[in-house]
């Protein structure tokens, strides 16, 4: 790790001005950023910790959606939305291990947009809105490929609003070593239609599987997906699985998610 300055602002405004400094970078739970710094693969000059900002921690529910502060940990989400949005709570409860869940934050996960992370599927599948210190961004516009998002330099995710679907389920198939998603599929049945978001699989990062959505919109059942799988050509192929295997898993997990929706 290289030396760096450390700032722990109390408000979003203070954080935003701290982020204006040369080489400044936001710090959520540090579960991605700190290991990278320890390996000397990242060298921010100023770390701006967001977890001390009261307004960015916590969960509130109103009008059919839950809003989660950007610096809220996975463990808190798992506990606080267990009743209001059980599928999202289950997703959060199955990220990493207790140490990761007690530190890692929803804002950090979405800002990082790891192609194998769970929250991107939850946010895109739910049709969430990502709120920053500058604007609201619809999930459909937010994810722009592996590790790429609509965030500008220095922009801070202050909260994320998840509309609560009628039914939802997240199926994650673990990569054996990291236990991130080798493939993860989030299925949500909403009044505006079914949304199917796939993580872990595509070279383009998290995406909506529109063919499955169409099929499920006319018949929300496993049978509607019979014989369907992802497109192997677009899929990640690595030591944990070929593109063909991932494409196959996309189909299997989507069916299982639909079945689990009941």
């Amino acid at each position, binding site marked *: 790790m290289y030396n760096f300055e450390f700032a722990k602002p109390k408000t979003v405004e203070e954080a935003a001005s701290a982020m204006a400094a040369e080489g400044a970078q936001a710090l959520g739970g540090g579960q991605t950023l700190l290991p990278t710094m320890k390996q000397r693969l990242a060298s921010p000059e100023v770390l701006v910790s967001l977890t001390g900002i009261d307004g960015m921690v916590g969960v509130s529910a109103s009008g059919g959606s839950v809003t989660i502060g950007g610096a809220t940990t996975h463990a808190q989400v798992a506990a606080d939305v267990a009743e209001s949005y059980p599928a999202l709570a289950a997703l959060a409860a199955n990220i990493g291990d207790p140490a990761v869940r007690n530190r890692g934050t929803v804002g950090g996960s979405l800002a990082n947009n790891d192609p194998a992370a769970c929250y991107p599927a939850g946010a895109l599948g739910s049709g969430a809105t990502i709120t920053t210190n500058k604007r609201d961004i619809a999930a459909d516009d937010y994810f722009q490929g592996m590790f790429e998002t609509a965030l500008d330099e220095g922009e801070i995710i202050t909260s994320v609003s998840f509309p609560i679907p009628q039914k939802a389920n997240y199926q994650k198939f673990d990569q054996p070593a990291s236990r991130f998603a080798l493939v993860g599929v989030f299925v949500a049945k909403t009044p505006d239609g079914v949304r199917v978001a796939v993580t872990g699989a595509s070279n383009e990062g998290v995406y909506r599987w529109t063919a499955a959505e169409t099929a499920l919109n006319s018949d929300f059942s496993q049978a509607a997906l019979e014989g369907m799988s992802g497109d192997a050509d677009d899929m990640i192929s690595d030591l944990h699985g070929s593109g063909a*295997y991932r494409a196959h898993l996309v189909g299997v997990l989507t069916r299982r998610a639909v079945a689990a929706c009941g």
Partner: protein
Amino acid sequence: MAADGGMGHATKRREDVRFLTGRGRYTDDYTPAKTTYCAFARSTVANGKINSIDTSAAAEMPGVVAVFTGEDFADVGGNPAGWLINSRDGEPMKEPKRPVLAHGKVRHVGDAYAAVIAETLEQAMDAVEAIDADIDELDAVTNMADALANTDTLVHDEIGTNQCFDWGWIEDNRAATDEAIKNAPHVTTLELVNNRLVPNAMEPRCSIGEYDPGTGDYRLTTTSQNPHLTRLLISAFVMGIPENKLTVHAPDVGGGFGSKIYHYGEEALVLAAAKKLNRPVKWTSTRTEAFLSDAHGRDHVTKIELACEKDGTFIAFRTETMANVGAYLSNFSTATPTFLHGTLMAGNYTVPNVYVNVKAVFTNTAPVDAYRGAGRPEATFSLERVIDKAARELGIDPVALRRKNFIKPDQYPYASAAGLEYDSGNYDALMDGLEKRADLAGFEARRAESAKNGKLRGLGINAYIEACGIAPSNLVGVLGSRVGLYDAATVRVNATGNISVMVGAHSHGQGHETAFPQVVADMLGVDPMSIEIVHGDTSKIPFGMGTYGSRSLAVCGSAVFRATEKIIKKATLIAAHMMEDKPENVDFTDGEFAVKGTNKKVSFGEVALKAYIPHNFPLESIEPGLEETAFYDPANFTYPSGAYACEVEVDPETGKVDICSMVAMDDFGNVVNPMIVTGQVQGGLAQGIGQALLEHGIYDENGQLLSGSLMDYAMPRADDLPNFVVDHSHATRCTHNPIGVKGCGEAGAIGSPPTVVNAVVDALQRGGHDVDHIDMPVSPARVWAAING
């Protein structure tokens, strides 16, 4: 005997109190005054010519006190291979020099070519980045078949080949085995890979060098499984420091599994730097460095053939193996694929013909050496997989096929066709026990239950034998070992009656501090807690060969036993003198010396005191003091054996394998502490299941380690494992060591991989999929690919 805590008692491990309460003292916990810190510059290319290394900028960096390159060690020796193997044509193996720091060429990613010593670790790391190394990347060779075929790309130019040796065992049996296979009514052939493993001990390697200019003494504190061997190698081969001027101390060590048997260049470097700087020098490996530079394990590519009669009687095993030794010969790398592998290729069976050919191959990858089981897991995997395939081809139940060919209890000592003499065992008794404890009869019902849930259930059976208690010096000497493999112990009874036992074995998780006192306490009739084991420091202990190969209790424990016998003998003389009678009239039981037929007695404690306060002593016949040393060199290996069963459920949609049960029936001979033995088996099973399902060190064709971190290298976790059934009640004593023990440290890692793979293949076969074999790790992706052709 000692009421509590003697032989056979499941005494809790006394050392766990300090380990579990954070009071262990590991190498990195030790920071002498004025310590400097070392960081290495390591190659990022797998094969490269070093044109120049400019360290001038690094040397000017803040806090830097010294920079070393391979040039600085050009005149010192190399780290040698401990075992000479001759090829079939009689040529000795190729032994290219393994320098302290790469010189002229780098040969694998992670090969260290320079080192910086600085006031702080960060300064040392900063300076490493300032080293300007001009290295031409050359084509790399990582695949063994390519390495043998393609001599344009050489790991070591000076030897003109990538083949280290081409070994035949037993060469005289080759023709007969070929003939037997040619004429056999049935031959089953299997090609398989024994996957490369990265050891991943919880504690990474760490070394601290110190030098005392007043006395000229060196001290190396290091993460080692055998400090005396490390001292010997540094003294005799690498640096020429006189042995009596070098202390090697391995304090608490957080796991080794083989990877800390060997001497590594970093140890020599911190010693050389400490001398030059006149300050302590410390290096602690990062996890990344561990992945790139610790000796890896396994990595064989094998073709095995089993010839048999139509009724399943075995006629011959013939094996052809390529064994990856990586870029340099690590200390035992040449013994592992040969004498720890080829000699076991008769398994538990009365097979008349065995022939094994092993080609050891240099590649641009990290060195490969012994890893828990070392050669025996490879042997067992090949044998037990091909036997399972033969059973299927012949339509014979896999248990029945094994039983048909087992060596029977009345055949011991049994001379195996692979050149070993097994002293004892009872494989049918183990299989009987297994049938009961694994409820093999109930399998069909469980399978039907799994099928209802859409899961394919399979049953895997395995029998193994291993050669442990490594080993008899006479035998290993003939086989090419350059060291003896005895062990040593000194039992020192202190004046006040408590006892220090100095041992050559090293405990890094094995529980010696608890088990060894149980042996002594039993013999002396004293409280085990009055006995302390001293190990790991060459300035305190007699010359021993350390811990690996399940040898500690069988070899070093036997030395403890012999030394304690000597203590009893001498104490009897002192007791006789105290009671004014002849030694032959004195009996020793339960810690008391008594004159036969009288009520005269003295306690062990009184005798101990007398030994150190020898007033009125017959000095012409008894020396003062009560301290004895024994060196023990066994007559043979020990031969633990076992029968294992595993049930798995395969999800045919995803290929995911869940292990439902794992039953291990082992014969370890006498058991000193059943709880520790069970723990050792459990750990071995976890590692074996790790190999079978999860772990894989994979290099790409450019020599980059793709699974170079825990994000890609899958270690087994608790929820990957079932509740184990571990049973070591079906024991046959080892006939040649005084405690009757065989060794249990590696069994689980040897017996479990073929059991798991047999179970997966069985599940797929029963599920109607024509799958004969899946290479380890049997990952979901591989199972799915096998199912889907």
